[in-house]
């Protein structure tokens, strides 16, 4: 196989790739490293310490923010994934028509609008609801806003999974006397499940990580974890932020790892 590698080799590309990798991870590595620093300074290393983690986890502000983040993310994930599943079932394995094209565009619309635009538009909308009709859903406002952008993120893996599914399996089920509902429950749904789980994980992470939309839509007392971190960063860093950030990073990495394992198993 040395020959094949030879033909494919382009000079310098390997180095660039390595640098790329290094550059992507170096800052994060610094962050993680110094979250274990006993010293307040970010650049002088004294000794290893879990102090900041202890302080962070005991911090009531952080606890509250974490709770809010999880509540919103759970709601957005559950509703977003359910809606995305229904949407995927409706738009896949069908001949492309104007209807499906429009549907596809609408579902993916949140991905195409810059976040700041979505943020101010959503803010304006909820402000109008409040001042004009007196309606406000409290934390629900934030949950709804998150659900909207979670739908396309959940939709993509579910759709991919569905498109790869063998159509004849559902025909076989019908051939064997299963009603459309039982076909869905016993054949379609179990086979779709890896895609649905992947979509849910993506939606959860995306909701957890959101900053701009949350910044503009969240009301007082609805501080999510990213918003808390942002506030701390602006005020001048306390190393607890490093610790909280590292924890959030770990959660993200965990999810991505699971996502990959799921994809691997499904492919084999």
């Amino acid at each position: 196989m040395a020959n094949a590698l030879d033909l494919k080799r382009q000079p310098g590309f390997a180095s660039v790739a390595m640098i790329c990798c290094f550059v992507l991870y170096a800052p994060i590595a610094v962050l993680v490293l110094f979250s274990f620093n006993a010293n307040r300074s970010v650049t002088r290393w004294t000794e290893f310490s879990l102090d900041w983690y202890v302080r962070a986890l005991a911090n009531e502000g952080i606890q509250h923010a974490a709770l809010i983040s999880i509540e919103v993310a759970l709601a957005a994930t559950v509703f977003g994934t359910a809606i995305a599943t229904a949407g995927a079932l409706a738009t896949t394995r069908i001949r492309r028509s104007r209807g499906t094209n429009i549907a596809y565009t609408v579902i993916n619309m949140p991905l195409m609008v810059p976040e700041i635009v979505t943020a101010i538009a959503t803010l304006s909308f909820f402000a109008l609801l409040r001042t004009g009709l007196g309606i406000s859903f409290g934390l629900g406002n934030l949950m709804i806003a998150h659900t909207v952008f979670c739908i396309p993120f959940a939709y993509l893996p579910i759709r991919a999974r569905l498109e790869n599914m063998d159509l004849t399996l559902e025909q076989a089920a019908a051939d064997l006397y299963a009603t459309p509902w039982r076909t869905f429950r016993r054949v379609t749904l179990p086979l779709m499940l890896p895609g649905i789980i992947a979509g849910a994980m993506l939606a959860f992470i995306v909701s957890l990580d959101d900053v701009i939309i949350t910044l503009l839509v969240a009301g007082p007392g609805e501080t999510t974890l990213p918003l808390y971190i942002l506030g701390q960063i602006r005020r001048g860093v306390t190393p607890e932020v490093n610790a909280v950030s590292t924890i959030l990073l770990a959660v993200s990495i965990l999810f991505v790892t699971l996502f990959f394992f799921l994809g691997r198993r499904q492919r084999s």
Partner: protein
Amino acid sequence: MSENSGIDVRGVTKIFGSGAEAVHALDRVSLAIRENEFFTLLGPSGCGKTTLLRLIAGFEQASEGDIRLDGEGLTHLPPHQRPVNTVFQSYALFPHMTVAENIAFGLEMQGVTKPEIKDRLEAMLALVQLSGLEQRRPAQLSGGQQQRVALARALANRPKVLLLDEPLSALDLKLRKEMQIELKRIQHETGIIFVFVTHDQGEALTMSDRIAVMSAGQVLQVGSPTEIYEHPTSHFVADFIGETNFLQGEVVAHDTTGATVRLSSGATRQASAPPDTASSGKVSLAIRPERVTLTRNREAAALGGRVENVVYFGTDTNYHIVLGDGRGFLARLQNHQGAESPFAVGDEVAVEIADHALQVLRD
């Protein structure tokens, strides 16, 4: 056997697409399939045989026409309400279920009791010789084993009709021959109507009670293997099944014993003919290569020509002959005397055709 039993396909048309892009997958097809019959739909790809099968199963709806089973209409029933089961070309085994769960699926859907399911399962596994493998998943089985699971899964429901969509096409030759025998045996044992789709004419000839030859959405001829092979009624059927020689001739007389035709050489012979053949006029004729004999006596022979090529293949030898009028002709002689062939390239030969060996074609 009552008038109303079996499958009755009446004037079925299926159109895909619309307007300028409309494709007539089936064009006014009518068929009657009898009880306890191994019926084959035979034709090249695109002829509509799979479409017809899917119409019977209920995965497609007919644009026009009607399909009845035992006298009752099927067209308004969704697939899960038809007493018809399918063996798919790709087997379509549920990958997330075991062999046992696959086979039991249809019974479960119908609400059959657990003890009964267990009995049926054992019977099916024995029938297809897969006992002991019921806890495996489809991915852990070989192609042949998967095929038998698909068969068992369909048969477990004791349907009135079993539809088989080219089920043997993915198997290697040896396995295919074995399964052909198996399928025939199972059909005989269960007495279920088998509707079998294939493009392999050899398969059709060996397995079927009757064959429907299809092309371009139409049924060209329906008959037993012998009828189809010995008495094709159209160019396509004659050409699609086995090898054929086509000749031009003229009908001199047509009565109950057959038709008398005159060949280009002037010789006349008796020929089999479809009942609606005219009593006079030009016709096309078909004759199988193995139905002729070759002699050196050119007088009073049906045709004459010169041997252009001799191809030996063990059991028989093919003689490619150029006739007097320049056309080609294939004669096949069995090698009774072994490899030594009585004729060589360049020889002048006479082609002798017996009465009733020729077949008049409709087109």
